[in-house]
């Protein structure tokens, strides 16, 4: 019973802060409202005995949202929300789609005959997931590694505006790259 109440409360926080993301004017508040939603989810995972995954969610989402805040401030007009403004399109249609998705999923959740839990959770959920990704799911993790590497390369290629000719000269013969920001290593 306690678990149900705690999870329901955390879920309420997650949904409310999630809605606030699209209500508040200030971009900083929107970003950290989304972070609050993730923190509530992470806490819910912790309550459900998923210590590692809950903490991982908290850790990763905090860093992600801090970076997100930088981009929000950089790319949005009116980042502090000091002037009321809305940047939305097709609100009604979007609301209908969102509500339809919610209703559809909820009907499914409450009409499905869920099986009983076969047994109690293991003593150490962290060891379970650790052994899984180093065992049966090893291939998945190897693929994830490749995907993340590709993401890093593609992300840098898309985001940077300076190529090797800018850094090493038209004939690529400069010994030290000509960068606007000097690094900390002697090159």
């Amino acid at each position, binding site marked *: 019973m306690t678990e149900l109440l705690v999870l329901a409360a955390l879920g309420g926080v997650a949904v409310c802060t999630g809605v606030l993301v699209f209500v508040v004017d200030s971009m900083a508040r929107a970003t950290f409202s989304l972070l609050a939603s993730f923190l509530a989810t992470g806490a819910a*995972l912790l309550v459900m005995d998923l210590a590692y995954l809950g903490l991982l969610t908290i850790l990763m989402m905090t860093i992600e949202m801090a970076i997100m805040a930088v981009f929000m401030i950089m790319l949005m007009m009116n980042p502090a929300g000091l002037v009321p403004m809305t940047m939305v399109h097709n609100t009604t249609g979007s609301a209908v789609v969102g509500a339809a998705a919610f209703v559809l999923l909820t009907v499914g959740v409450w009409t499905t005959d*869920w099986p009983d839990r076969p047994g109690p959770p293991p003593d150490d959920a962290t060891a379970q997931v650790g052994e899984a990704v180093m065992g049966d799911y090893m291939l998945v993790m190897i693929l994830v590694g490749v995907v993340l590497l590709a993401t890093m390369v593609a992300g840098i290629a898309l985001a940077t505006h300076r190529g090797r000719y800018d850094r090493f000269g038209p004939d690529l013969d400069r010994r030290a790259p000509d960068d606007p920001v000097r690094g900390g290593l002697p090159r």
Partner: protein
Amino acid sequence: MTELTLQVVLTVAAALVGTGLFGALSQQSIVMVMMGLELVVNGVLLAAGAAWAFLTPQLPGAQVLVLMATVVMAVEMAMGFAVALAIYRARQVDTVDAAEDLAG
């Protein structure tokens, strides 16, 4: 009791997915669209965690699904920001409406 708890948590996850979908569809700013997508994946995280705790705690599959959802979020963020920066550099575009010609 576990079934009721599972249903409540899954309903919350459905609400997160619905809210995120609404945000992703209704917002004009590219970054805000990404916030909506993040919220959808947040719902997936919660649902996968609940599936593990209340349906298959003896199997690691649902835990790996949670891991995958976080990976999806990381990839979505990195590529989303890279694309947002690239299109802003190319033509000072920061809303999806101004980039409609990219639609296939």
